[in-house]
């Protein structure tokens, strides 16, 4: 029993799961019906699942997907990519451009997605080369696209905010007729499964962690750190493109200024809450996804409490601070010492009773 408690306590997922648990409890106490899922009829007349819980999972999809891409970068490059939202805007712009110049059919959508992936990967590789080859700190290297990215997106669309609409796109951003679960959630799950398979069938997980923990050692054991880092940026590029396209489908237009605004901050928070150290090394994809859901759950909870949207940031910040404080090494040690002291007392009590008997 003690062994399994120890294992759980030291697992990376403790804090995120615990935080999620707290959020759930808080909401249930506040409003028992908060998490109820009901079946409603949406605009197209189909029966779909709806409710706060669905809203949380749905809204977090884009962030969660980007977090999946950000996690390996954080792990092996020991820093954050703050340009993800800007590159998502670029990807979204490309997606819209291609769609607008053609009739929107399924093959066209796929083609548009592939194009946006390619462009996104290209920009990610730009970041990747700066980080891996020129050995520039990730946060600094990605500052470039952070500043210029949205403007590049703007420029791709000729300085406008064009709209695209089509039932097909709506079904990607919303619901596929007949399936009650919102499509973004499905896409996210698919992504997670895909990446997990990649991690299982290749040594990418091990290599990424080794490079992140000690690059020199990685080199001396035959790993090419440059290649590993570039691969992590490619993966991120694909994730970012997916998130950008989903968001475009959901809102039906591309606004370079507001698309996934401040998303990079949410993503970094998700990764941090999820248990991956921002300084590189061991990572947890699952944790990052949970982190994304925590952040979204927080947002939805706040909206449900009638907090105005501009003020949501403040409350988010307060909760984040709390969570991060609880998972800080100092606090952890405090609790471990407490735990040990209480155990010592128990053990001593036992000793006394034994020796007394």
């Amino acid at each position: 029993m003690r062994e399994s408690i120890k294992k759980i306590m030291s697992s990376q997922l403790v804090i995120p799961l615990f935080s999620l648990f707290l959020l759930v409890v808080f909401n249930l106490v506040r409003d028992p019906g908060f998490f109820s899922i009901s079946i409603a009829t949406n605009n197209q007349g189909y029966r779909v699942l709806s409710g706060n819980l669905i809203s949380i999972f749905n809204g977090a999809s884009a962030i969660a997907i980007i977090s999946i891409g950000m996690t390996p970068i954080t792990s092996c490059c020991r820093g954050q990519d703050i340009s993800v939202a800007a590159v998502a805007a670029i990807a979204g712009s490309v997606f819209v451009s291609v769609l607008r110049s053609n009739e929107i059919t399924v093959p066209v959508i796929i083609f548009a997605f592939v194009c946006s992936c390619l462009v996104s990967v290209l920009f990610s590789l730009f970041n990747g080369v700066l980080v891996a080859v020129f050995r520039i700190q990730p946060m600094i290297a990605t500052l470039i696209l952070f500043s210029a990215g949205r403007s590049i997106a703007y420029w791709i669309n000729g300085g406008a905010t064009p709209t695209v609409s089509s039932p097909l796109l709506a079904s990607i951003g919303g619901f596929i007729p007949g399936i009650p679960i919102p499509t973004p959630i499905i896409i996210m799950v698919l992504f997670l499964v895909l990446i997990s398979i990649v991690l299982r069938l290749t040594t990418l997980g091990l290599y990424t962690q080794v490079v992140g923990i000690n690059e020199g050692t990685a080199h001396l054991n035959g790993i090419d750190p440059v290649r590993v880092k570039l691969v992590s940026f490619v993966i991120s590029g694909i994730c970012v493109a997916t998130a950008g396209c989903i968001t475009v489908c959901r809102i039906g237009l591309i606004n370079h200024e507001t698309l996934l605004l401040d998303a990079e901050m949410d993503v970094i928070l998700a990764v941090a809450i999820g248990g991956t150290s921002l300084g590189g090394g061991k990572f947890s994809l699952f944790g990052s996804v949970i982190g994304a859901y925590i952040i979204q759950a927080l947002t939805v909870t706040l909206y449900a409490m009638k907090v105005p949207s501009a003020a949501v940031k403040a409350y988010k910040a307060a909760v984040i601070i709390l969570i991060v404080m609880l998972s800080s090494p100092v606090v952890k040690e405090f609790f471990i010492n407490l735990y040990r002291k209480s155990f010592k007392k128990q053990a001593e009590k036992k000793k006394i009773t034994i020796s007394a008997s």
Partner: protein
Amino acid sequence: MKKDRDLLTGKTEKKRREPISNTTLLMTITVCTFFGMYLLSMMIWKGGFLNPQQFLDLFNNNAYLLIIACGLTMVMISGGIDISGGGITALVTMVCVVYLEDHGGTVLGSILISLGIGLAFGLMHGILVSCFEIQPFIVTLAGMFLARGMITIVSIAPRTATQESFLRLKQARITLPGIGYYGKTGNFIPAQIEPGVIIAISIVVIVAVILKWTRFGRNLYAIGGNSHSALTLGINVKRTKFFAYLAAGLLSGISGYVYLLHTGAGDAANAAQAEMQAIASNIIGGTLLTGGVGNVIGTLFGMLSLKTITNIVIASGLTKPYYQSITTGLMLCFFILLQSLILAVREKGRVRLLPEWMRPGKTGKTGKTESH
């Protein structure tokens, strides 16, 4: 830029008496870049660049940014980061305006409030980073969110300051005699400096003195160089880091007041992107994110260079808004690459550079090397 050439080859340093430190080197490059750019602009685009007021406006419009960047320099030298600058600035503007307008506040009161808010945030950041050992990026990110969020809680809509005593302060100008330009009607309009600029320059000087001559400042460099060593050398790392963040917060508060003096209004969109621009100013100015290297003079010229680029872009006719940030991005790219190149060359040069005592006198052969 002769200095560049000498230093890029690295080897020529051997002839110098004492190779200049990384800090000084990078700063020199920035200063040269700025002056080079400005002089070139004066020659190529003439127009506005020949107007001294435009040069002074670089300071007038961006005094607040300079102040945030100075605070950031101190934090970055110690190896940390603070991205809450813009948020605190904006919050201060809103709170001060509301105080002045709705609560009949005094100018002195508003100054105290701005300092107080800055200190409060700095305190929070300092405690979380030094006592709880949480990563500064997250802490200051949360701080930024908190600040920006609180703005709308104070007031949803933008507010303008109309209180008289404040307006008098806001409209005060220092006129430079003799320097000026000819307006459209042919009148000579002397160049003017806003009060915020005086504050900003004073802060630059103060921070420069702190960094060069005080124990606190030197401790920042030590911690940035090797925080474990700093600890064993007897430096109270926790306390020093705490004060670095406290100072950065305080400076953000001051920056808020200066911003208010400049625009006279509180608005949730104030100082947008300020923190990233402050970071960019630092990077261009030669402050390394990894710590241990940095200089406020460099930051000052980094900021000037950054803003000059914007002016150049406008002057060259590229008026579409996206050109500005694209050029900013390009400039950043250039400087980042330049810095990493120079540092890499210096590192290589150093490994081969034998300390003088190792070079034998008689035979002239190379002696032992450091590596083994």
